């Protein structure tokens, strides 16, 4: 990288990403999102707006969900970062949220998906999601233009059930199976 002499020089930082310490030299103006995508080839974290308006770039920093487009990489020197690439087990077994997403078709184009999944993991860490309405509110920072929200809700409910944390059911929920196919 040829930095101009008039611009701030790169700084060496260490990020622990998905359990692996990665040392890198980045200029101060590089966002965490671009550091992941362009410098480390961790392109699972997506860029939908670069302005903190869509949630596609959500990652976990020290267990907390944040928009990685709104933080500079140098500000996170020494932090533990979990991206979508780090959620599945070593053996390739999907994280329960990932598995629930596949089962419930909680995505279409898949572009908001890594952000949704990281956000859900972060939300569960926060421990405030008690009802469906809580979940909807707490997940409203992650846009899905494909409109997969109802299936995202199903995937979240399943994961919570598996963890023994049943969300209180919806007041207007229809007691109706997910889809109906007349034979």
């Amino acid at each position, binding site marked *: 990288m040829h930095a101009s002499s008039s*611009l701030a020089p790169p700084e060496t930082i260490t990020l622990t990403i998905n359990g692996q310490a990665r040392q890198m030299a980045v200029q101060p103006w590089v966002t965490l999102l671009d550091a992941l995508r362009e410098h480390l080839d961790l392109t699972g974290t997506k860029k939908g707006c*670069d302005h903190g308006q869509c949630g596609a770039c959500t990652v976990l920093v020290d267990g907390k969900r944040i928009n990685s487009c709104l933080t500079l990489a140098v500000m996170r020197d020494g932090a533990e970062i979990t991206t979508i*690439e780090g959620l599945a087990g070593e053996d390739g077994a999907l994280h329960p949220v990932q598995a629930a997403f596949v089962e419930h078709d909680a995505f*279409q*184009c898949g572009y908001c998906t890594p952000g949704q999944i990281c956000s859900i993991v972060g939300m569960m860490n926060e421990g405030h999601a008690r009802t469906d309405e809580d979940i909807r*509110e707490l*997940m409203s920072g992650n846009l899905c*233009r494909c409109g997969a929200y109802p299936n995202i809700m199903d995937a979240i409910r399943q994961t919570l059930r598996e963890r023994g944390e049943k969300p209180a059911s919806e007041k207007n929920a229809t007691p109706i199976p997910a889809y109906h*196919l*007349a034979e």
Partner: protein
Amino acid sequence: MTATQYVGKPVSRVDGRAKVTGAAKYAGEFNVPRLTYGVIVSSTVAKGRITRIDATAALALEGVIEVLTHENTPRLAWLDRSYQDQIAPNGSPFRPLHDDKVVYSGQPVALVVAENFELARYAASLVRVEYAPEPHQTNFDDAMAEAYEPPTGRAGYTPPPKPRGEADQAFADAKYQVSAQYATPTEHHNPMENYATTVAYGEEGKLTVYDKTQGAQNVQAYLASVFSMSSDDVRVISPFVGGGFGSGLRPVYNVFLAVLAARQLKRSVRVSLTRQQMFTFSHRSETRQEVRLGAARDGQLEAIIHEAFADTSTFEDFAEGIVNWSGLLHQCDNVRLEYRIAPMDVYTPADMRAPGATQGTFALECAVDELAHRLGMDPLEFRLKNYAERDQNLDKPFSSKELRECYRQGAERFGWSQRNLEPRSMRRGNRLIGWGMSTGAWEAMQDKAGAKATLHVDGRLIVGSATADIGTGTYTIMTQIAAETLGIPLERVEFQLGDSTLPFSPVEGGSWTAASVGTAVKEVCEALREKLFKLAGKIHDSPLGDATLEDVVFENGEVRLHRDSARGIALTEILRRSDMATLDEEVTAKPKMLEQSGYSRHSHQVTFVEVEVEEDIGMVRVTRVVDAVAGGRILNPKTARSQILGGVVWGISMALHEETLSDHAFGRFMNHNLAEYHIPVNKDIPEIDVIFVHEDDTIVNPLGAKGLGEIGLVGTAAAVANAVFHATGKRVRHLPVTLDKLL
């Protein structure tokens, strides 16, 4: 189909794992070596000339490689024809960095290329562009004075049908009348992934172009023709597309700029649009519509007059079917439909999910609701009374139409019979409750498409076609069709798409992919089946004896006798015994025009919606939706349901949220970001109940599938607006229904 082991089953997406683990690579994510980054400078005026571009400060930065403008780009193809893609409207396609003319605000005027992204972005901010602005027109209400009838000739565009009966007379004579004006705003597709291209510059200048597109071959043909390249020298690859909704049907200017820069610099280049720049090409046309309906006392529809105006650019005549649906949806003998477009200083509109249909159906289905209200009639009963048994536009029977069943099942699931006719008659606490409904239709199209299939001796089946999967489930349903047809386990089948070197496919849109590419996949696998059967017959001591193709089944990777399932042979064994490593086949599947042409082919939808309106502040929330769809055979209920969910969410969005606003002083879109351009968030979307009504159709295509990408959206916005009327007694005819319009 010999069996239904996979087709029709709720198979989870075959690309699901890649998408939930972050392994799926989108266009801007191919990190090729020595990559450079291009950042686009956008015009700040809507119309005029560029008088000066000063890039000195940008170029002075170490690491900035080049600033491309109209002043230093090479001469490219000259004729408009060279820039016209598969679905271009009539006119002169926009040419980036072509000359000093500015034809819309946000037009790319320079590309800054640097060794890294941040530097390119900073350098782009240092490029000084001076303009001689000219007066612009971005106010549609004023632009309408210049409206004209769009020329025919655009692929896929059908002009309104000729008037039938005496619409104006019948309207004047009708006992019950509705005459109302409706408006829909400009909208932008805004898929979650911004448009991006990564060009890998290869040996001898060969280019591999990773591009976000709904048609890899459409982009490849465009690039080859614009840059006068041999088609062997440019390959377009697009394995994953982060949403399209029509915005990627035509080549977007980032691909042009990335290729231009790569060729100029002989380097690999990535050009990504910002979210703001996602508002600088393609939008849903803004409309103004007038609908006049007349009915007799018993509710019989006696006249339909629907006139629509929509915008286009100054350089292309964008045409879409807005009013045609009004002659199709309900039985009526006196119909007059008109459609005009008016040029503005904006980029050319584009097809946006259910293009035309959703704007036109909003107006018609609201007017129908108004008429039913005037008659004191239940809106469902009104629609049943005027049920169209035949397509009166084409004067042809429907190949299939289970709309009546949609009405019945949808109403029952929703509990429609409990509805009180009177507006403002239902409450929950301090909230008004409203129930509304509407109908929609979309054409079931099939286009020519190719596919190839290769069976490997290790048992893998690779099938491919140059189509796209923009979230629609193409990978999955094609895998299902191939697995089914050849009786090979799903896990052993791989479907490839999004590569211009694969067999021909039309752009992925219009809900025609399942029908077109699906038929090609089915046919190529059938051809391969035949080949395998013949090969099996030649094997010494063939267990199939002298059986014919009709006597055998393909199942579990084997071909076996119907009557004696013990007698069979594995497909891999056939290859091995024939000394072949692979066996392949390629076909081009064409629609059976003659057979189809006698019929009108459409999918249908009915949406029932419940809204809650907080009376004091006018806040609307959709609380319940039932969408019943007659879309032919459902190939995969899981991905099919997702398509409909998406359509319904888009309908709610159109009704309550979406609107791109212009600042006419500058001729520029103001809310060009995801905070101010509203789309629904999780909290805005309730449970959505999707019903697929059984529909057999042997005419539309050999699969019987009608396509589901658009149909969930078509009538949904109208259903929401009708529900708001039922809740509040206020009729909002200008979308979106925001709270200021309800107070």
